[in-house]
């Protein structure tokens, strides 16, 4: 039955999605192409759509593939499937931490993890900057310095950072939407 297949496959994909949605892409591609759920072109389209819509990329991809394969129920089942491992694991760990938070070993682990995770998130931001502000591929083709940096993107990023620093009360979504409008007009 397609729904069971979707659920189980996406549960597996969700479990091995470590370090962000992009990790799961190759895993997802293998599954989707093996089962014949999508064509390669359709898959590429789906990645683009998943990045451009609200929600985490991983769940977006699950919803999309689920819908293509099994309609609305397929979308629901795949999305719940991909979330299930996270949900179960986190509930257990959260409960564990509730009791063992004060343990020296746990504290020590966190002493290492906290700065490391901060670095990882910074790396994620850098990754996005690489495709939006720093255009390395483009520069390699043309070798003109102006092509290395997307100045409009840099301007947007700079203005947003300044505003966040100055106007602490404003919700981040305001900047994101404003940047979208700016992009529509000027980019």
């Amino acid at each position, binding site marked *: 039955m397609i729904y069971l297949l979707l659920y189980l496959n996406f549960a597996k994909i*969700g479990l*091995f*999605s*470590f*370090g962000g949605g992009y990790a799961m892409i190759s895993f997802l591609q293998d599954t989707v192409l093996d089962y014949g759920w999508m064509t390669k072109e359709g898959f590429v*389209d789906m990645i683009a759509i*998943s*990045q451009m*819509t*609200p*929600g*985490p*990329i991983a*769940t*977006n991809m699950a*919803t*999309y593939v689920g*819908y*293509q394969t099994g309609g609305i129920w397929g979308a*629901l089942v795949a999305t*719940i499937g991909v*979330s299930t491992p*996270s949900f179960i*694991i*986190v509930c257990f*760990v*959260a409960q564990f931490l509730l009791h063992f938070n004060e343990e*020296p070993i746990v504290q*020590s*682990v*966190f*002493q*290492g993890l*906290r*700065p*490391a*995770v*901060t*670095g*990882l*998130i*910074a*790396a*994620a*931001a850098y*990754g*996005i900057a690489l495709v*939006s*502000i720093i255009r390395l591929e483009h520069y390699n083709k043309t070798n003109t310095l102006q092509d290395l940096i997307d100045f409009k*993107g840099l301007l*947007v*990023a700079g203005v*947003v950072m300044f505003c*966040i620093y100055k106007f602490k009360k404003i919700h981040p*979504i305001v*900047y*994101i939407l404003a940047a*979208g409008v700016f*992009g529509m007009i*000027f980019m």
Partner: protein
Amino acid sequence: MKTKQKNICWDLFITFLRIGGFTIGGGFVMLPLIQKEVVDNKKWISEDEIVDYFTVGQSLPGIIAINTCTMVGYKLKKVPGAVAATAGMITPSLIIITLIAAFLTHFQDIPLVQSAFNGIRAAVVATIAMAVVRMAKKSVVNRFGIFIAILSFTVVSFFDVSPIWVIIFSALVGILFTRRGGANK
């Protein structure tokens, strides 16, 4: 917390519905959104605690965004809270993606959409960067932390090391090099 206990699950659902709906351009955008909604507005979780939730969310298998919202929901109201938060998080995706998959399969090719996303991506870099700065005030507090943070950033950004190794390594290093009780060099 002044919210009535019965309404917390609904409140969680609605809050994460907003967060999920605004998480655009990548799962990491939810970090500044959670800082704003959960720490600043609702005051459900403190600045110190949220850093640990982000940390746990990143360090466990599974989808980071789902990990984090499950964590927050669980902390507030155990399993029902976790369900409410997660359900809120995935609902916008479910609705919007299904609509796009059904009616607008060339959504990503629409030029206006692409232009909008050129702007959005740049703003996303900025909001995540500032969220990192805010988080770092609590998570990177000594020379050891600075070293680990810079090392993590560097190996992942420039040497294609998988985040999994960074997490395992930093957890071990934390155990080996920090003194029991939390103080370290």
